């Protein structure tokens, strides 16, 4: 398995290389200039601007610029944020834990709801409860997260006052204290619920259909013939088989949750990678933009690798050598 993982990681290099060309080109094609932050705003002398362009390397041929970027990038120098005036690396390290925390909480919410509802529906298909769950899921799938987010903020934050509507932690709390962690949890819960419950629909319906399909398999009949209880048949025999296709989703989710929280993080002004991404687009903060895009590409590939490794653990027929 170690050898397989190493081979897969090596295989990522050409893919990441191609991605970097696309990312770089897109950044170059974007209208506008990043100069807002790099030059002295009070000095609009064209000669000064030209001098700065030359100094920053924007007049070099495009492939030279690309090679310079890639060389620095590979060495861990992700550039300098023009908007925040700090290295991109520091910026991302500052924001990433928030996003990962949000992703994990929302993933847990998704899994709890999806497995409970999917197993219920799969075991009792075409019943009242199953239809109710399907109805909820289609509504959930149809409502965009910005609508759900705003409604949730309106009711739970403004009307009921149960949850804060912005930020990741209350200002003034000392990191490491109990109150600090409670406050973080309190802040993350509402956006995580929105993100998590949005994701439940596809998981639930997929699990439901797979459970129904597996419940007709021969091995279920064998298990019944052995005198195995219905709950053991569903919770062991069928669930274990139905988990296999869900792992594909998990692979996608790892990247989607880091990058896909853009809208939710923006609505809740939750200081994570998603919000940073959107701000950077606004401010033409190329270095941040390119780094986040590369990070997401890498996470997508990594997510797929993790999914493939998990297949090997859950499904003994897949042997990774």
């Amino acid at each position, binding site marked *: 398995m170690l050898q397989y993982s190493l081979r897969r990681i090596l295989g990522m290099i050409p893919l990441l290389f191609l991605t970097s060309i696309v990312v770089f080109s897109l950044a170059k094609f974007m209208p506008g200039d990043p100069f807002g932050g790099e030059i002295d705003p009070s000095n609009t002398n064209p000669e000064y601007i030209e001098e700065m362009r030359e100094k920053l390397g924007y007049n070099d041929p495009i492939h030279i610029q690309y090679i310079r970027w890639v060389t620095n990038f590979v060495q861990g120098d992700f550039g300098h944020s023009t908007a925040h005036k700090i290295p991109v690396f520091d910026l991302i390290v500052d924001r990433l834990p928030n996003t990962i925390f949000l992703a994990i909480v929302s993933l847990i919410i998704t899994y709890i709801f999806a497995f409970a509802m999917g197993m219920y529906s799969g075991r009792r298909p075409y019943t009242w409860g199953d239809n109710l769950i399907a109805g909820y899921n289609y509504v959930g799938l149809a409502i965009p997260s910005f609508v759900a987010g705003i409604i949730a903020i309106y009711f739970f934050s403004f009307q009921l006052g149960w949850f804060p509507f912005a930020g990741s932690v209350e200002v003034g709390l000392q990191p490491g204290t109990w109150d600090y962690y409670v406050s973080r949890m309190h802040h993350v819960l509402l956006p995580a619920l929105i993100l998590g419950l949005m994701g439940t629909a596809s998981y639930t319906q997929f699990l439901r259909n797979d459970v129904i399909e597996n419940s007709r398999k021969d091995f279920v009949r064998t298990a019944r013939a*052995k*005198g*195995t209880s219905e709950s053991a048949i569903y919770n062991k025999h069928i669930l274990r088989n139905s988990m296999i296709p869900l792992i594909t989703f998990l692979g996608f989710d790892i990247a989607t949750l880091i990058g896909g929280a853009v809208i939710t993080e923006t609505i809740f002004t939750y200081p994570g990678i998603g919000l940073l991404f959107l701000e950077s687009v606004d401010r033409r903060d190329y270095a941040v933009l390119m780094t986040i895009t590369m990070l997401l590409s890498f996470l997508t590939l990594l997510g797929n690798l993790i999914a493939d490794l998990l297949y090997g653990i859950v499904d003994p027929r897949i042997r990774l050598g």
Partner: protein
Amino acid sequence: MVGKEESPSLDTILQVNELKAGFDIDGKVYHAVDNVSFDVKKKQILGVVGESGCGKSVMSMSIMQLLPKETGKVTGGEIVFEGKNIENYSINQMNTIRGNDISMIFQEPMTALNPVFTIGFQLQEILFNHQKISKKDAREKSIHLLRQVGISRPENIVDEYPHQLSGGMRQRVMIAIAIACQPKLLIADEPTTALDVTVQAQILDLLREIQSINNMAIILITHDLGVVAEMCDDVIVMYAGKIVERTNVDALFHNPKHPYTQLLLQSIPKLDEEEKELGSIDGLVPSLKDMPEVGCRFADRCPKRMPECTEITPLLGFVENGHEAACLLYENSYQTNGRNTYVK
């Protein structure tokens, strides 16, 4: 339900009385098994023969309540196991019998085992279902069972997965699972159909060996008359959901009474009659949806058909001592008798 005139003898282990079972298609039940009655004695190997679609599998699934939940239905009759009618047992009650008193092996060993669990897990599961046994003992017992069904290096196989085994080995594992709790009755639904001929013989030998050691009864469902000749004591011949003939193996092969059985036997190649063309039966089994309501279901394909065959439903009646047939060629098929009181 209708009682039998003769009381079941003490060594009757399973008694099926006027079983009706079939499939619910758009609210109407089509019977794949229609008024089937028979019994199985202790230590007996009963063969059930018939071509595809004659209801033999539905019958065996009905005994175990394993018909597909959504469509399968038992609509009438009794299934009496050791004196208790188990036809209306709840799932929980059935689960104390399934695997413990009655076991089953299936046609398709490739798919009958769960692909994501080890052989050991699937073997031990049946032990945990029915016995109070420690994990360590269960493992030892499962290794012992694997050895008993002729699997070499059982200590390794116990930790392997079904896809690592061949079809014949998987069927051996299925047999090991089926006999784990020493059931009194084993239902083998075409246990060798999906296997190579050489493996078939091994599996049949194994079944017979285990049957004599464990003293269990077997219902052997097959469409292979060769298997019947080799294995069985008594035979039931089924056609289109009904029993058409019932007798012992000798009588079946030497003196078949029902025209269907006679034709079936003619379709077996014989070594001493080289040049003769192999017999076949023209036509097909009528489908469930257009089964004739009255009359013999074999009438359309029967070479000995008489006018009344489409008007009177033949009953299973004695032709000779210990030999029953449902055919209007024999007078006992016209009237009610002890074994079959069904009159249309």
